């Protein structure tokens, strides 16, 4: 008992979840003070309360919900298509050196052109409607998913495959009993990157070519000089992106409960 008492910290410590709020809250405080003391003109940096009430108004009219829903739907569609293709290509290149030899150089060149760089060309190809957004988001998710899946499969220790050979696993058994489970951690890293990239690409493409969505809310707020609306949209974009990443992290942890001691 004495040992336990001695091991307890002398002052109450913050729970780990609380620490995460420490920095944002101090930033918010700094922002409030800056707005109150007028360090920056209110046209450039509106007070947090202004942003809050702008968000409240947007929520009240349903604009916030509808724009968020549109953005989320685009990300879900684009991410689903891009990550599915990325998984397929990553697995194909990971399993077969021949496929790698044929496809990898072109893929690398393709990946080197930033997602934004594809937008002008794709605009000419498919116009500025929904297909453009889906294609851009899909491309953003596709590259990190394919790369990490490929690297993950290549990194599976050959000694695992030997166990499979010993028990006469066929190719399919080897793939879904050994290779894919062993590659789950890097594949999930790829999916998380892919989702983050997809969300970033969404905002970019909505800034350039859209009349709805959270990215459009940003442009609109800037054009109308409603900086409170613009900042509100930024905050929502950040929060949604954060939530998406947390969802992926939770899924990852569920799939990998065996890793936790």
């Amino acid at each position, binding site marked *: 008992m004495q040992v336990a008492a001695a091991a307890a910290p002398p002052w109450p410590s913050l729970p780990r979840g609380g620490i995460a709020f420490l920095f944002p809250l101090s930033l918010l405080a700094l922002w409030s003070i800056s707005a109150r003391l007028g360090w920056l003109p209110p046209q450039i940096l509106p007070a947090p309360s202004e942003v809050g009430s702008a968000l409240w108004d947007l929520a009240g009219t349903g604009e916030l919900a509808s724009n968020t829903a549109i953005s989320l739907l685009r990300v879900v569609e684009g991410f689903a298509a891009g990550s599915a293709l990325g998984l397929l290509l990553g697995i194909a290149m990971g399993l077969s050196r021949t496929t790698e030899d044929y496809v990898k150089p072109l893929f690398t060149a393709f990946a080197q052109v930033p997602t934004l760089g594809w937008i002008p060309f794709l605009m000419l190809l498919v116009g500025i409607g929904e297909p453009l957004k889906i294609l851009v988001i899909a491309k953003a998710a596709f590259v990190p998913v394919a790369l990490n899946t490929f690297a993950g499969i290549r990194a599976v220790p050959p000694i695992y495959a030997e*166990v499979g*050979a*010993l*028990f*006469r696993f066929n190719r399919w058994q080897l793939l879904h009993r050994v290779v894919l489970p*062993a590659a789950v951690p890097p594949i999930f890293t790829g999916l998380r990157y892919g989702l983050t990239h997809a969300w970033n690409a969404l905002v970019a493409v909505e800034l350039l070519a859209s009349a709805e969505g959270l990215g459009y809310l940003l442009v609109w707020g800037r054009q109308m000089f409603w900086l409170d609306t613009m900042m509100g949209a930024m905050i929502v974009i950040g929060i949604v992106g954060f939530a998406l990443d947390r969802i992926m992290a939770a899924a990852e942890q569920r799939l990998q409960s*065996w890793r936790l*001691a």
Partner: protein
Amino acid sequence: MARQGELRVEDVSKQFRVNGSELLVLDRVDLSVAPGEFLTIVGASGCGKSTLLRLIAGLDTDFRGGIALDGKRVTEPGLERGLVFQEPRLFPWLTVAQNVALGLLNAGLSKAAKRRAVLDHIALVGLTAFQDAYPHQLSGGMAQRVAIARGLVNRPGVLLLDEPLGALDALTRARLQDELQRIWAAERITMLLVTHDVEEAVYLGDRVVVMAPRPGRIAASFDVARPRPRDRTSAALAAVRSSVMTALEATIAAQVFDTPRGAPRPMAVARDFATAEGRV
């Protein structure tokens, strides 16, 4: 289940290509193991004893000569030959029971029969309480016991053990040796254990084969005609141990002075390797 487990290794030679030159690792090895026999192979590192097990397991089929189990030629891995590696090689994402069950994936048994076989073999190695544990929750000795259960779950004719206790501490090692002996007695299975530990080889084997390195070949063979369970401290075992030790030391001493049959000296190979690396 009726299983025989008569293993014949006839005139087996194996070469590796190291840096453009051929390195003979096994030179005309002849070995025959009777059904139900516990044969141990002891040798210095580099004597090809692990390579020999891999050939018998069918993991490497590029060799000259013939290997047959119960008259059936070995050309690929087969469920009638079980292998336990030096490290457990369990899949970390599967529980103990799932790891053992994976060995039965292609055994063609019914679901119920598989489940029973898995539970029986986990019980055989004394890990029933841990069947739902993940590998990271096991000690090294427990993990190796799971690997043994996985090696046995197909009821193979022969179980090949490639220094399975080499990485364990002395106490765990002694306990697992007793365990292996008990399993062998209970299952009446042919076992072929490779080790560098003379005491282990003599304590467990009906027969101890001493291999000499570079190229790997059989140098001597000793019968250990002692009843079981054996007493580690008995004078009879000590006598066999010292004969085996003498034979083993002779293989190492001979190697220092002569390099048989034009095989490259290890230092020369290492040097070639280094210069080749340097050139790249």
